[in-house]
């Protein structure tokens, strides 16, 4: 446990020290890359709540990236740049969409659940493509980033970086608290044995639906961040390969572990970035890599860390 805490603490310190280091070696690109990694880490952390702890294999998590992103984008389109409002709308809209999708899909099990979450995300994707007003297939630019009444300036890459870092740690803390609460216990119980958890008097449906909504709204926040990060919103946010990638991050890092999703996001996106710098056909390598990971690397990166099963 000690060694594990030390390693994870060192990771956080490295993330804290990254912007000055990157500036010092004259590579500000790394600030951008790490910020992107951390935004996806938030998405992966939120997915881990339902996938890892709850056993709900949602193949549509990118939907909330899109909903969050479009909330910011559409408000900005109508000249509302207030970040508090934009992000609150992003989180609430994602929660609403997650409630609608979850209300239907959480009732189903196994493969139906996977396919239904996928199909609903695809529905939102086509909705994004067919609404010409907001750029259709091409998406739209976010000309002005979210404004926080002069408190936080997202236009400054380093400030934005630290904000994302704080939010990531905050989300990890929230998930940790949720999982270790009575509520989280029911979620985990339903995953390990649904019949038994029913027998002792817990109907999993409302709990799982609530977890689904929490995960969705957290991912919506990631979507709002991503829109500000890329200064651009497009239906591609909700592409189903995006959902697959987020899912892969969770598996690669280690399901149902606290640091896993963040480690997975880091590993996958950095590998992608390296490969993409080397060949435009990087997916021909990432694809088989994914297959190999699933077949032979089930415990994930967090499983390599010393210490207990769960941080």
């Amino acid at each position, binding site marked *: 446990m000690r060694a594990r805490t030390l390693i994870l603490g060192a990771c956080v310190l490295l993330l804290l020290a990254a912007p000055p280091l990157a500036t010092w070696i004259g590579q500000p690109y790394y600030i951008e890359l790490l910020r992107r990694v951390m935004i996806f880490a938030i998405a992966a952390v939120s997915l881990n709540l339902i*996938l890892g702890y709850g056993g709900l*294999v949602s*193949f549509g998590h990118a939907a909330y990236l899109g909903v969050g992103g479009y909330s910011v984008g559409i408000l900005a389109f109508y000249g509302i740049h207030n970040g508090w409002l934009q992000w609150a709308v992003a989180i609430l809209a994602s929660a609403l969409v997650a409630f609608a999708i979850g209300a*239907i*899909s959480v*009732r*189903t099990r*196994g*493969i*139906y659940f*996977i*396919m*239904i979450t*996928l*199909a*609903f995300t*695809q*529905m939102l994707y*086509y*909705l994004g*493509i*067919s*609404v*010409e*007003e907001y750029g259709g297939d091409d998406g739209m630019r976010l000309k002005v980033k979210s404004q926080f009444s002069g408190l936080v300036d997202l236009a400054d890459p380093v400030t934005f970086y630290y904000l994302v870092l704080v939010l990531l740690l905050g989300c990890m803390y929230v998930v940790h608290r949720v999982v270790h609460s009575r509520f989280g216990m029911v979620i985990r119980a339903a995953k390990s044995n649904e019949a038994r958890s029913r027998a002792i008097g817990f109907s999993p449906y409302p709990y799982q639906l609530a977890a689904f909504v929490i995960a969705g709204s957290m991912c919506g926040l990631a979507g709002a961040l991503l829109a500000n990060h890329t200064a651009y919103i497009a239906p591609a946010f909700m592409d*189903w*390969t995006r959902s*697959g990638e987020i*899912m*892969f991050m969770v*598996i690669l890092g280690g399901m149902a572990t606290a640091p896993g999703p963040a480690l997975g996001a880091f590993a996958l996106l950095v590998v992608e970035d390296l490969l993409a710098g080397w060949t435009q*056909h*990087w*997916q*021909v390598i*990432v*694809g*088989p*890599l*994914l*297959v190999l990971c*699933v*077949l032979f690397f089930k415990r994930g990166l967090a499983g390599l860390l010393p210490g207990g099963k769960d941080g």
Partner: protein
Amino acid sequence: MNFILLFEQALNGLQFGVMLFLMAAGLTLVFGIMNLVNLAHGSLYMVGAYLTVAAVQWTGSYPLGVLLGLLGTLVVGMLVEVVALRTLYERDHLDQVLATFGLMLFFNELIAILWGRAALYTSLPAYLQGFIEIIPGSIYPVYRALVIGVGLVVGAVLWYVVAKTRLGMLIRAGASNRTMVAALGINIRMLYTVVFGFGAALAGLAGLMAGPIYAVQPGMGELILIQVLVVIVIGGIGSVRGALVGALIVGMVDTLGRAFLKPLLAHFISPPAAEAAGPALASMLIYLLMAVVLAVRPAGLFPAKSS
């Protein structure tokens, strides 16, 4: 809205439905029998389309090219089964989804390396380019009519094979109790490989028939894959009958929705609003349909009986 237009669009819907069925049949068989979720099924559709385009160019003959394309997809399907998927049968759905997702990325990129990212267009032989008059006053492309015909024949053959032959009996037995079939001396691994190859060839057939109608390009399989997932969710996963009914419903709803929803909406709301809402609603229609079906019957219209 005149009758002839409606008739033509209904035929288009049937043609699309038939193609969805060819895809859905393979996917649902593989799920029903091997309990495998195969997201790479769309890749086999793409492989079928590409191999056929290449084979037609190489041999200069359309029927020969189609035959080679089908055989090629069958071989690719069996190879994928033996190399990658065989180890996945015992895993949970999450592993299967991710691994086959990885395969799909691989195939998309491999095709892009081999043939480039630009869409290929195939030319049909002259005898398939004409039109026929199905009802007086309406002409319909021969090729699309052929697609409908082929799909219906394949559907009938599939039903015959599964319901009436020894192979079909083994397939049904394998679906209900794998261990028992193996204990009776049947090579179940071989049977699985054959079934998978069979499903791959059906996907390849759908892909090669789609080639001249839609564009042949990397990623072409993903679009139809998700529609096929909707089909088998509506029909009931693992049920071939459900796949047929689901495919026809989805094909019709999608095609008719795209054709008539906008003019229909214009009767109720202002034309500019219909202009904006029509296409958006039309592209969401099949997913809404799925949501309604699931809300009423969570296991689809024809739930498969085996556990």
